[in-house]
């Protein structure tokens, strides 16, 4: 399986090596009456692969979505490569590639067209675009389906295509929300290979998953969330964030002036 990981020239060397890839302080997010995240203070070292564990509703997806700038924190702060996600989301977006539960694909476009659209918006230079798309299709094993409309894809094929879009980006931080879901054995092996390649390339990766056994060989450390707070930290690469904080749940940063 051909697998080239592209590192963005913009991202490489732009940040001090000591700066954690992810740093959160008392990060919280409320949806209506319930707290999806209830104050998480974490630091993830650059270049490490860390698993996010926990039951459904523990806050894994919410944490990933905040880091991806899809939603804003209700309280607390989060920084990617030292950049605040709420203050400079535009700068964070260029550094992050996010695989969410929803694939974000267009049903009426073909597989190749979906990737071409993504490549254009991700500013893959025009001369190498077609080559990159063909390469990506080969990597995700969908070369044969490239001209087929996504409407006719199975859930696993859609997931692969969404992974392909992540591959087209040149991120410093990869966020994966249950990458194994809906995939067959070959698909899971693809995820294994990608995790290994990102780790090799020094790209920080956060993986939310229930398949710890499957992940184990590819991760440095893990965080277990329960009910929106950190329950357990294991391994290396991730640690509690000792930055000063308010009393539990007090707003820091974003909530500043109500």
């Amino acid at each position, binding site marked *: 399986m051909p697998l080239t990981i592209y590192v963005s020239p913009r991202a490489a060397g732009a940040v001090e090596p000591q700066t954690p890839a992810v740093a959160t302080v008392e990060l919280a997010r409320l949806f209506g009456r319930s707290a999806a995240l209830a104050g998480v203070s974490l630091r993830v070292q650059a270049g490490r692969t860390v698993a996010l564990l926990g039951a459904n509703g523990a806050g894994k997806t919410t944490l990933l979505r905040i880091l991806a700038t899809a*939603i804003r924190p209700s309280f607390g702060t989060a920084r990617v490569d030292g950049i605040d996600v709420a203050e400079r989301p535009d700068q964070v977006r260029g550094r992050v590639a996010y695989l969410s539960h*929803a694939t*974000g694909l267009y*049903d*009426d476009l073909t597989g190749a*067209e979906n990737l071409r659209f993504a490549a*254009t*918006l991700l500013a893959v230079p025009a001369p190498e675009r077609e080559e990159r798309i063909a390469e990506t299709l080969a990597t995700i094993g969908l070369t044969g389906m490239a001209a087929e409309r996504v409407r006719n894809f199975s859930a696993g094929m859609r997931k692969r295509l969404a992974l392909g879009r992540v591959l087209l980006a040149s991120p410093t931080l990869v966020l994966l929300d249950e990458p194994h879901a809906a995939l067959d054995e070959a698909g899971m092996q693809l995820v294994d290979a990608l995790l290994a390649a990102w780790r090799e390339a020094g790209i920080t990766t956060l993986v939310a998953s229930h398949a710890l056994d499957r992940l184990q060989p590819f991760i440095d450390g893990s965080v277990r969330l329960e009910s929106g707070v950190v329950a357990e930290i294991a391994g290396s690469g991730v640690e509690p964030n000792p930055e000063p904080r308010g009393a539990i749940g007090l707003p820091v940063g974003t909530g500043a002036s109500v």
Partner: protein
Amino acid sequence: MTALAAEARIAWAIARKDAVSELRGRSAASMTLFFAALVLLLFGFALGPDTRKLAEAAPGLLWLAIVFAGLLAVGRLHLLETDDGALEQLALYPIDRRAIYVGKALAGFVTMLVLGAVMLPVVGIMYGVELARAWPALSVTVVLGALGFSAVGTFYAGLTVRVRAREVMLPLLLLPVTAPLLLAAVKASAAALSGDPFGELGSWLQLLAGFDLVMLLVAGASYGFLLEE
């Protein structure tokens, strides 16, 4: 590549993507046209069989039909983005959000142009209006009206696509704002059809152009805020 060129390239990619999707889901696009024609037919019933009366009201009825069908059309262009979280994905690309607006508004503009181009002859036939000598002025009116409607329609469709009760909220918010556009387009069309006896066509077209310009600028600058969650 300059930032502006990059933005234009992205806007073009989004508009093209929308156009391809709309053409492949062909039924939806043609249903909008059919809906507009149906509205014209119903106006015919509502205003009675007197052809002279219909011909007199034709400019207003034409634009009402375009506005009603346009509501569906601009709403649909944002509904395309609700395919499995596509809008969220679109908002996460490292691109200027104004480019998303421009792309969506461009797709809306083309859709509205097609709508206008089809509705004009339909009005001509159904309401017995003589279009032949008025067509240059009518074309300019349709182009300016389509641009303005798409400029505001795209903004409000982007606003309501994530809101509860969006089917009600889109017309409720959009229609009052488009009132001056409707007024100017109807007056310009009427002036064009009657050979512009009072020399007011130019003023109405200027008003339309002014509306287009102001709304493109303000809605374009504001659209990015709508994608915040």
